[in-house]
């Protein structure tokens, strides 16, 4: 779906902007919002690009930089940290060969920090796109990541 097609689903009202941006981002192959998208949103809402840009840059779920197909939101809230999230994070960074905030060279994964994801009873936790993963440790991480890699490889081959 093109950005124009997405925009037309919404009333041209400012209060619809976050919904539009979420959907635009979801449909872009780079999981991001481009300068061209910002111009189109601004035009549709009869506002300035600067004001749309300000919104995009304010909210941490929006990204202008292209991201991987799978965005990992890694919870670094106090409780997750208490039960060892940073050690888990280190092994995740090693597994993906990237640091927090970066994207893998095959454009498969982007690793982002997240504030409390609200699953503290099953900490440490992370989200991979829409999916929440609980009770993370090194073995569990490897399992999750290799599962996604295999599944993507199969898709490519078929």
């Amino acid at each position, binding site marked *: 779906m093109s950005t124009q097609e997405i925009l037309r689903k919404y009333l041209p009202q*400012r209060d619809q902007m976050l919904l539009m941006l979420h959907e635009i981002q979801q449909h872009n192959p780079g999981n991001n919002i481009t300068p061209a998208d910002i111009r189109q949103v601004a035009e549709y809402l009869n506002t300035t690009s600067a004001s749309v840009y300000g919104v995009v840059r304010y*909210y941490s779920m929006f990204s202008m930089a292209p991201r991987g197909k799978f965005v990992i939101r890694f919870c670094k809230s*106090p409780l997750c940290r*208490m039960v060892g999230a940073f050690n888990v994070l280190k092994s995740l960074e090693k597994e993906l060969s990237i640091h927090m905030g970066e994207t893998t060279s095959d454009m498969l994964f982007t690793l982002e920090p997240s*504030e409390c994801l*609200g699953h503290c*009873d099953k900490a440490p936790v992370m*989200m991979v796109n829409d999916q929440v993963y609980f009770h993370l440790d090194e073995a569990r991480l490897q399992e999750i990541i290799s599962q996604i890699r295999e599944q993507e490889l199969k898709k490519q081959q078929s």
Partner: protein
Amino acid sequence: MIQQTKISLRNTGSIDPLSIDDYIAAGGFQAFEKALRQDPGQVISELESSGLRGRGGGGFPAGMKVKFTDKADRPFDGMKYVVCNADEGEPGTYKDRVIMEQDPHIMIEGMLIAAYAIQAQKGYIYIRGEYIDSIRKVEQALKNSYDKGYLGKDIKGSDFSLDLEVRLGAGSYLCGEELTLLESLEGKRGYPRIKPPFPANEGVFRKPTLINNVETFALMPWIISEGSEAFKAMGTEKSPGTKIFTISGDIEKPGYYEVVMGTTLRELIELAGGMKDGADFQAAILGGAAGTFVNASVLDTPMGFDTLKEVGATLGSGAVMVMDPSRSLYDMMASILDFFAHESCGKCVPCRVGTTLLVNMWKDVRQRRNGNRTEMLEKMEEEAEYMQETSLCPLGGSPIIPIRSAVQYFKNEF
């Protein structure tokens, strides 16, 4: 051992959250239909006399909010709004998620009751963008409610109409603060507004708005069907009713528990299976990041808004993070201060600069193994107090809460 008293969670686990028929079969919407047969003023006084206090953390009397919004002059277009704050982001808190994922219709019914009381025609449920499952379930529950005639025009043969829509956050803790949430709802950056005016007079689109937390709305159907006296019969004098606590950390069965207000931390920990592996209790953080560190001396204090305040602690959102003696209080405080530094929106200079300053000061405290650490802690208190006085929204006023409590309860540990 104490038992749970489930009001807002009464259907969780026993019904299909996506089935409105299940909800109705469990007595759902009867409270709203009862309200519909009453005068709106009667509904307001029932909510007010229940003594219900906002469950998002502030503890403001919910009935008074309803009354203020009702009294606010209706603008030229006649619009009043009802908004549900489902932007749950206080670290350690996940009660609203549980309600939305397991019984979304109860929140909608609460919103219907409140909207009828103030004769609002339109409402929004603002859910944080990361809560994918909540978003999907609430959207389905809204659709069900329209299909069954509980939302839309002339609901159940009355002349009361209400439209509800879901709106999404996009990763900002600050947007859980009510005025900032309203800014975000209008499609703007989440910068706090100056108050007053309060939402009751100038809320979303500058129209009178009643904004409450998910749990607060979820308690309203019970209050209407069982009466305010029954609600007041539970809990403490100043904090009536029940509260969902989300307990995590070094305990056997972390999770969510709805108990009467006034339950003690000791009882709650016991209900959650006790300390993990029988370890000793070192500390708990009550109320999330904007909450308080407490030691074992608070284990037997009844947990209510005022009773905890009296001992320098907070109830907040009901988050309880438990630490055994192996956990580092330093690290915990460091992660809380990091959190505020990350989430400060930058609008008010004292908060923007101060939150980072506190992170660095804390590192300094840590490096000083002996001697003048106390002095450093006092300096931090001073900085954090200044931030509280000079920031627009509660975020700037938050770091002082954990810092002061840490000094009060753990001065000798640092």
